[in-house]
C-alpha cells in the first residue's frame, strides 16, 4: 500500500477524457488498497505535491502540458517517481515532427512528411513552399498540427486546391504543422507495457474500424462509434512485424513504462503514425481493452504501470 497522487484534468483539449482516465485509475488504485489523492493542474499543484510527498505520481493527463514533458520535468525536480515516460521521450512523442525524425533516423518506417512552422510563415514567407511540399509528397495527404493528440485540426487533403484551407485550420491548433503522405491500409494500434525489471512487450494488436469516416475526437470517445477488432485481423507474419516495429519505435523514442504505438499496415508493412506516451484509459480506449484481451485486468494493468514507476533503482528515464 502506497500513498499516491493521481494527476488528472489539465489544460489541454483532452481535459474531459483525462478526468475519465483519472477516475478509473483512481478507483483501481483504491481497490488495490492504495491511499490515492487526485489532483488537477492549477496554481497550487506543486505546493500540494510537496506537501503530500507521495511515493509515486500516476499521471493521467493527455495532450500538451501533461503528456509533453512539462509535468514530468517538474516531478523530477521534486524528486517524485512518476508513471510512464521521461521528459525528453514525452516531448519527442508529443511532437510528431520530432517523433518522425527520430523514427526515420532509427530506420523505422513512417510516412514521408514536411514540417511548417508559423514563424517561418510569418518571417520567411514559407507558404510559398506549400504547393511544392504537397506535390513532392503526392496526394492525398494529411495535414495535422504537430502537437495535438485527438484529431483536432486534422484533415485529409485530396488535391492542392484544398491544401491552403487545411493548413490554415491546422495552424489553429498549433504553431507547427505537418503535411504527411497518406498511408493506405488497416489502422492497427500496438499497446506496449514495460513491467519493472522486464523488457517492454506488446499487449496484443488492436485494429480500429471507425463506423463512418475518420477516427476523430468524437469517434474516439463515443461508445459505439468505433469497432475494435482484438486481435487485429492480420497474418502471423504481419503481426510479428507489427509488434517488432512498434517495440523498436518504443525504444527509439526512449519511452518508459507503457505507451501506445499507432500504425497503418500498408502493403503488409507497418508505418508508424504516432506514439502516445499517455494513451487514454477510458472504457473505449485501446490500451485497457487490449490488456483485458491479453488476460490482464484493469487493476493488474494499473498496478504493473505503478510498479514500474516505483522501481526507482532502474536506469534514469530519458
Amino acid at each position: 500500500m502506497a500513498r499516491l497522487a493521481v494527476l488528472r484534468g489539465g489544460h489541454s483539449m483532452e481535459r474531459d477524457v483525462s478526468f475519465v482516465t483519472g477516475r478509473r485509475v483512481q478507483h483501481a488504485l483504491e481497490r488495490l488498497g492504495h491511499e490515492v489523492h487526485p489532483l488537477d493542474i492549477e496554481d497550487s499543484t506543486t505546493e500540494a505535491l510537496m506537501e503530500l510527498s507521495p511515493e509515486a505520481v500516476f499521471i493521467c493527463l493527455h495532450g500538451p502540458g501533461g503528456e509533453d514533458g512539462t509535468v514530468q520535468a517538474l516531478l523530477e525536480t521534486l524528486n517524485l517517481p512518476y508513471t510512464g515516460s521521461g521528459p525528453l521521450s514525452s516531448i519527442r512523442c508529443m511532437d510528431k515532427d520530432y517523433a518522425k525524425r527520430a523514427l526515420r533516423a532509427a530506420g523505422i518506417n513512417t510516412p514521408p512528411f514536411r514540417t511548417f512552422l508559423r514563424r517561418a510563415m510569418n518571417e520567411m514567407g514559407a507558404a510559398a513552399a506549400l504547393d511544392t511540399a504537397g506535390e513532392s509528397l503526392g496526394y492525398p495527404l494529411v495535414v495535422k498540427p504537430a502537437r495535438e493528440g485527438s484529431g483536432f485540426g486534422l484533415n485529409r487533403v485530396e488535391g492542392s486546391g484544398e491544401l491552403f484551407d487545411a493548413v490554415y485550420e491546422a495552424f489553429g491548433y498549433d504553431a507547427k504543422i505537418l503535411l504527411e503522405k497518406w498511408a493506405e491500409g488497416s489502422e492497427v494500434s500496438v499497446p506496449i507495457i514495460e513491467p519493472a525489471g522486464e523488457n517492454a512487450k506488446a499487449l496484443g494488436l488492436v485494429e480500429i474500424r471507425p463506423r463512418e469516416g475518420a477516427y476523430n475526437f468524437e469517434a474516439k470517445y463515443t461508445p459505439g462509434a468505433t469497432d475494435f477488432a482484438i486481435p487485429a485481423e492480420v497474418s502471423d507474419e504481419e503481426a510479428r512485424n507489427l509488434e517488432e516495429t512498434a517495440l523498436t519505435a518504443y525504444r527509439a523514442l526512449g519511452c518508459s513504462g507503457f505507451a501506445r504505438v499507432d500504425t497503418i499496415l500498408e502493403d503488409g508493412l507497418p508505418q508508424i503514425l504516432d506514439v502516445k506516451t499517455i494513451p487514454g484509459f477510458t472504457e473505449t480506449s485501446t490500451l485497457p481493452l487490449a490488456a483485458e484481451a491479453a488476460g490482464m485486468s484493469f487493476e493488474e494493468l494499473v498496478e504493473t504501470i505503478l510498479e514500474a514507476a516505483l522501481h526507482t533503482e532502474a536506469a534514469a528515464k530519458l
Partner: protein
Amino acid sequence: MPLVDLDRFDFLYATRVKGMKTAATRDLMATLSRPGIISLAGGFPDTRAFGEEAFREIAHNMSGDYAQALQYGPTGGLESIKDVIVEVMGAEGTPANQENVFVTTGAQQALDLVAKVFLDEGDAILCEGPSYAGALNAFAAYRPRIAHVPMDRAGMIPAAARETLNKAKKQGLHIKFLYTVPNFQNPAGVTLAKDRRREILDLAKEFDLVVIEDNPYGMLRFEGEPLPTLAALEMEEEGDVDRVVYLGTFSKIFAPGVRLGWVHAQPGILHKINVGKQGADLCSSNLSQMMITSFFQNADWKAYVARLNGIYKERRDAMLDSLAEFMPKDVHWTHPEGGLFVWATLPTYLDATAMLPRAIAKNVAYVPGEGFYAGGEGKNHMRLNFSFVESEKIRRGIEILSEVIRERIELRSDLERGSKRGARQKPRSASTGTEG
C-alpha cells in the same frame, strides 16, 4: 472475428437518436471547467446576485406549506403561480389571461412540447438565422426541415421570411410554425422592430402558421423603450390570443435553477400540450412553483430585476467598450439593448469553431456560431455572453480574444502572401523537379 462491442444496444436505438450528435464544440465545453478560464460562452444569469438572505427568507416563508411543496401538482401548474405569471406578463405590457397559462419545466420543455405537438417528420419550420441552439436541438428530435430567415439590426427580415415561405410552399412542404426570440435574441442580441412584429403576425395569418414567441429576455432591457410582445399585438388586433404561442421563463428574472417556465396560448393548443406534458413529467415541481410564488408575492421582484439589469448593463458596456478598443477592424458585432449576448462576425474565411481551442488555450472561451444554424452555416460568427463574468474579466477576455483573432488574420495574410509568391515560382520548381 472477435469485435469488441462498445455499445451493444446500438442496433436498438431510434433513428432520431442517431441524428442527435453532440457537437465537437460541446465536448470542448468540458475544458471550460478548468481553472483560470474566462468563459464568455455560457448563457448563465448571475445567480450570486440573489443573495443568501433572500433565499433563506423564501425557505422560511414557504415552510408552513411543506406538505404541498413536496407533493405532486396539477399538470398545468398551481393556480397561485399562474397569478404571478399574469402579473409578470402584465408588467411587460401583455394582458395575459390566467386560463391561457400553462406551467412548464423551464421554457426549454415548452420548446420540446411545442415541437412534439406540431411536428411530423419532414414538416418545415421557420427560425431566425442564427437561432437559439437549444430550440434547434429540441426541434431536431422531431426531424423537421429548418429554414433560417436572415436578420439585420432590426431582427428577422419579413420580406426574406415571405420569400422562404413561398419557396417552401412551392416545394410542397407543410410549414407548421415560425419560431422567434423577438427581444435581445439569443444568440444575435438584436430586437425585432415593432413594425416587423406586425408584419410577422400578418405573414403568419396569410400562410396560416403558428408563431412561437420565445421571450426569456424581454424584461432585461437596459435602454430604449420596451416593445409590445407579439402576443400583446395579436390580442390587441384580434381581441384574443389565437396563433401566437408565447413562451416565458423565470430563469432570467428569478433563477434558472428552479426550472420553471410557461406557455401562454389558446386553450386548444394548451390541451394538446397538456397531453404531451403528462407523458413527459406529469407536472413541474411544486416546490419551485411555491418558491417563486412566495418571492414574487412577498418581495419586490421588480427591484431585483432592476438590480440585475444594473449589473448586466455595466457588463455589456464593458464588453462593447473593450470590443471597440481591442478588436481588429474586420470584426463586427451587435449592440444589444438588453439580454445576455453580443454576436460577433469575423472575416468570412475565419472559422470560429476551429479557432476555439486556440482561444481556450489562452484561457478565454466563447460559443462558435455554427451551433446556431441547423445546416452548419455561421462558422465565422461567435456568441459572447456578458451576464456571468465581472466587467474586469470581460475586458481581459475580449483583449485575449482579440489577440487570438488578430493572430489568425495575420496568419491568413502571411499564408496568402507566401502562396502568391509560390504560385509565381511554380513553373520553375516543376521543371527542376522535386525531391521524393
